[in-house]
């Protein structure tokens, strides 16, 4: 475990061609890390995320990805992810191969990956054309009952990146609130980078906090606001108005590019990104 700046952590742990899972189910989405990957112009990534959300819309639109594994690709409560759609429908800025699942299937694939099992099993994908669309969704016979069950290959990302509320000074990481499949994605990965709101001496008591012990963490980067415009429970709320504005910002290629140039490529780090949004407001 190392404490690094976010730019150092991305430079060291995210490589061209990697499979990379920036997880966080609506909550604790590692936006700052995604932006830093865009700044460092990583290419040919295989992006993995249950809900691509705005962070992958941005990374795909900026040409970071050649493949996407996902289970729901919309702007939650708003509509389409226009950059994701443009990549799938028109191959812009480059073709994007997709490996599409259901939430339950992808959760099973992360669980298998965390346990270093070859596949996940579930009673799922029943009566859906996804089975024809995705050759990785197969079936297996239960050796005890003979029942046919769905099987999905384990997900083991080269690197998983999370955002969490806190790390302590040893690099143990604690996250609370809606925790999605972050624990599974973290333990399935070969390398694990975590950005945090705060570095503390001791974690506050929490009933259902998930703690990732320091020896499974590759690097921790202190990055306050690192989930914005998603949120960090206890620190700041989801910027629902921004999610609504993104529909317009991302709708056409030029407008999207201008926004990314100004707020991501044109800023040095996440603090610069947040400051640049203040200037607009």
């Amino acid at each position, binding site marked *: 475990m190392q404490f*690094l*700046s976010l730019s*150092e952590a991305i430079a060291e742990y995210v490589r061209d061609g990697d499979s990379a899972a920036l997880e966080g*189910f*609506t*909550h604790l989405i590692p936006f700052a890390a995604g932006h830093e990957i865009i700044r460092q112009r990583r290419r040919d990534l295989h992006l993995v995320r*249950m*809900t691509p959300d705005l962070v992958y819309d941005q990374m795909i639109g900026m040409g970071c990805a050649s493949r996407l594994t*996902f*289970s*729901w*690709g*919309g702007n*939650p*409560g708003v509509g*389409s*992810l226009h950059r*994701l759609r443009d990549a*799938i*429908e028109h191959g812009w800025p480059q073709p994007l191969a997709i490996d599409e699942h*259901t*939430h*339950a299937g992808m*959760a*099973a694939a992360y*669980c298998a990956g965390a346990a270093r099992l070859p596949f996940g099993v*579930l*009673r*799922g994908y*029943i*009566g*859906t054309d*996804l089975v024809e669309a995705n050759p990785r969704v197969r079936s297996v016979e239960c050796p005890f009952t003979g029942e046919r069950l769905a099987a999905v290959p384990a997900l083991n990302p080269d690197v998983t990146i999370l955002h969490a509320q806190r790390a302590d*000074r040893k690099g143990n990481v604690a996250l609370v*609130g*809606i*925790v*999605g*499949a972050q*624990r*599974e994605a973290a333990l399935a990965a070969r390398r694990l980078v975590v950005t945090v*709101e705060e570095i503390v001496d001791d974690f506050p008591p929490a009933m259902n906090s998930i703690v990732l012990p320091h020896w499974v963490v590759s690097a921790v980067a202190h*990055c*306050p*606001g690192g989930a*914005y*415009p998603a*949120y960090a*429970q206890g*620190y*700041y*709320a*989801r*910027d*629902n*108005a*921004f999610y*609504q504005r993104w529909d317009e910002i991302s709708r056409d290629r030029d407008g999207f590019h201008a926004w990314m140039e100004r707020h991501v490529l044109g800023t040095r780090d996440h*603090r610069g990104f*947040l400051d640049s949004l203040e200037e607009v407001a």
Partner: protein
Amino acid sequence: MSAAAHDGGWTRDEMMTVAAARLLWDRCVCFVGIGLPSAACNLARLTHAPDIVLIYESGTIGTRPDVLPLSIGDGELAETASCVVPLPEIFSYYLQAGRVDVGFLGAAQIDRHGNLNSTVIGPYATPSTRLPGAGGAPEIAAHARQTFVMLKATPRSFVPRLDFRTSAGFLDGHGARAHSGARGGGPRAVITDFGILTPAAGTEELELSALFEGATKDSARAAVGWPLVVAPTVTTLAPPTDTELATLRALQSRTREAHRRPVHLPAWPAGSETRSPT
């Protein structure tokens, strides 16, 4: 049509939400999709079903949001929940285990047997419109004891043949679902903006069984892209009560205000983004 106020002072959108809410009962365990289903489920909770257990796929169980969430995982859902569990747990230990009474789904397309498409318009490999995709829907459709579907009717959404079957209804009907391995009962009602369709015994084809006040069988037939069967008895649904309308409008008004509220980030501490915190 749906946005305009109806003669009685309510819109068809509102009536759709009210009609869906009335199908829910107190203490039922309901897996909620975002959008219209979320409004209907919370309207039920705020009116006749105060102890309904609402589950959102983000892992929030027994949530009682004061405003409707924009996303499936807004902080409001976690803060007002009885408990919050990891996502693999909500899908495997609750949904797959058969612990959900009602699954509430939306879609872009539905066919006469209640199968749903939320994946693509056009061919899968070369879609004319790429939609968000499956999310939790296929397993909700398979495992909830019953499902309710909410979808506004146009010939583009109520289609003779789906471009892609994302989630199973009754498949080809005539008992096909029972042999599919799906353990839940499938769609029990489709709530649309002229009334309600329910599956016929035997064929399992959706037929018109209830109309909103002011809607006609002919307008229903015109809005559906297959020859719509009309049930032997078609009831007329009572219009929204004053309480239902006032509760729904107040909920939506609180929601609009909350989603506009500016977000304040904590002040940036001096010396952050340095190599070591010690």
